[in-house]
């Protein structure tokens, strides 16, 4: 800013400016000459006012400036700015007129260093998404009851302890294979990727849990690296990501077949509760037995019912067979009586007649079976199932279709779905 500001301050006593005019002139000059910019510094004296505006001082080793970030902008900040933090701030400079104070009005704030990581994250995410690594269609369903579970996490971390506690709590006879991996710092991404590959080579696990307990964004960074993303993508075994960071997603979360917010949640996702399943199977088994007992006693009733109705046609069959036999004999007799004496022919004829009688018997029997099947399908029990009842007048044993045919005092036999009721007619309305 080399050019001299023309503030016309040389007007002499007579033309003295008011403080307001002076400060306004300074403000307007600043605003006219300085637009938006990014500034780097360290936070000190940070405080959140009751109005939710955020105030702090941004300084480096030689200078300082007061910064205000209004709630409107501050509500979008995803981390908590704290004293001592190196940050990069975007804003404009102006003057708070009431106190003549120079201030930086901030619109954005980012922790320094992570800002660069954030950019790397966004770029990688975009690239892998374009390659289809995050496609929903690619995600595989987790096995309902995996026999063996592979775990990739820190050897001594709380994450591993949490996972094993939950896994073994839900499914005590479980087979778990732990492939310990370095989960933060130099080489962590490679180690995690190798671990996923090793478990695939081992091949026994049916689902993998890959993750770690909570930590800062930098601590979790390995799970944002391309190596890990590609290893998860290549895994033939479905992967549950379990990076302990409930709010932010890592790249690993996007690629994984399922994402759990914590290692504990991942373990819950990986195996069902054995006790619950046992209970479900036992309940189904009990219902099965009860259902069949009911069914059998119902069927026995139906059978009794059918047997009762079938007596008559059975009798008729016997009669018919007798008649056929009698006829054959009579015929043979008649033939002999006609004097031809052809006993052989008569016997032959008789045999044929008896045979045809038997054939007719077989046909009858077949018909009977058909009848039984139809009776079954027409069985009133089917209707009774739906809550209707059958009413039989005990006096004549006939179904009551017309109240006029029932006398007051008549005993009625009422069939419902299960069992019968005996009732007496108290009144009649026709």
């Amino acid at each position: 800013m080399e050019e001299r500001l023309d503030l016309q301050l040389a007007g002499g006593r007579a033309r003295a400016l008011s403080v307001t005019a002076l400060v306004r002139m300074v403000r307007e000059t600043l605003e006219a000459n300085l637009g938006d910019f990014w500034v780097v510094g360290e936070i000190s004296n940070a405080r959140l006012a009751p109005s939710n505006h955020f105030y702090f001082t941004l300084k480096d080793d030689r200078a300082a400036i007061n910064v205000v970030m209004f709630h409107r902008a501050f509500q979008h900040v995803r981390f908590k700015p704290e004293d001592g933090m190196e940050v990069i701030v975007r804003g404009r400079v102006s003057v708070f007129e009431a106190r003549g104070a120079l201030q930086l009005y901030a619109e954005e704030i980012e922790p320094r260093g992570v800002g660069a990581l954030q950019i790397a994250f966004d770029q990688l995410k975009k690239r892998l998404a374009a390659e289809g690594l995050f496609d929903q269609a690619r995600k595989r369903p987790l096995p309902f009851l995996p026999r063996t579970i592979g775990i990739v996490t820190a050897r001594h971390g709380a994450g591993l302890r949490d996972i094993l506690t939950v896994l073994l709590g839900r499914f005590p006879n479980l087979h778990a294979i732990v492939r310990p991996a370095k989960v933060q710092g130099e080489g962590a991404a490679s180690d995690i990727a190798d671990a996923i590959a090793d478990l695939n080579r081992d091949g026994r696990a049916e689902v993998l849990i890959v993750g770690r307990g909570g930590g800062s964004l930098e601590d979790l960074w390995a799970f944002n690296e391309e190596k890990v993303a590609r290893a998860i993508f290549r895994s033939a075994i479905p992967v549950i990501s379990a990076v302990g960071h409930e709010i932010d997603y890592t790249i690993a979360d996007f690629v994984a077949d399922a994402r759990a917010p914590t290692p504990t949640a991942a373990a819950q996702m990986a195996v069902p509760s054995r006790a619950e399943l046992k209970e479900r199977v036992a309940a189904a088994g009990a219902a099965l037995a009860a259902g069949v007992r009911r069914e059998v006693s119902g069927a026995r009733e139906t059978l009794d019912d059918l047997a009762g109705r079938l007596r008559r046609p059975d009798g008729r069959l016997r009669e018919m067979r007798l008649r056929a036999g009698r006829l054959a004999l009579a015929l043979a007799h008649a033939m002999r009586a006609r004097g031809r004496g052809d006993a052989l022919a008569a016997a032959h004829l008789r045999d044929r007649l008896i045979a045809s009688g038997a054939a007719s018997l077989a046909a009858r029997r077949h018909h009977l079976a058909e009848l039984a099947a139809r009776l079954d399908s027409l069985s009133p029990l089917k209707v009774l199932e739906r809550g209707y009842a059958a009413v039989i007048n005990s006096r004549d044993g006939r179904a009551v279709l017309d109240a006029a045919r029932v006398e007051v005092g008549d005993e009625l036999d009422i069939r419902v779905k299960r069992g019968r009721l005996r009732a007496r007619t108290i009144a009649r309305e026709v």
Partner: protein
Amino acid sequence: MAAKVRKFEDELKDLESIVNQIDAGELSLEDSIAAFERGVALVKSLNQKLDEVERKVELLTRSAAGVLETEPFEPAADDKPRETKDNGDPPF
């Protein structure tokens, strides 16, 4: 589905639908007896599946030569860090 072992969740679904069918009285007696027998077999198979796996926690490591090795791992006894061939990750 002949050779392949059926999945637990499929069998469980079958069992529950058999129970529903019998409960709804939709089956003939012969069918419901057959369904019952199938159901009993499913209960047996499901319980077997829940019991068959043996509790085992293993540690999988890879030697410098790239050979995978497993050793038993007892998580409870292992809370304290031991001779560390790993990277001294802080306990989170």
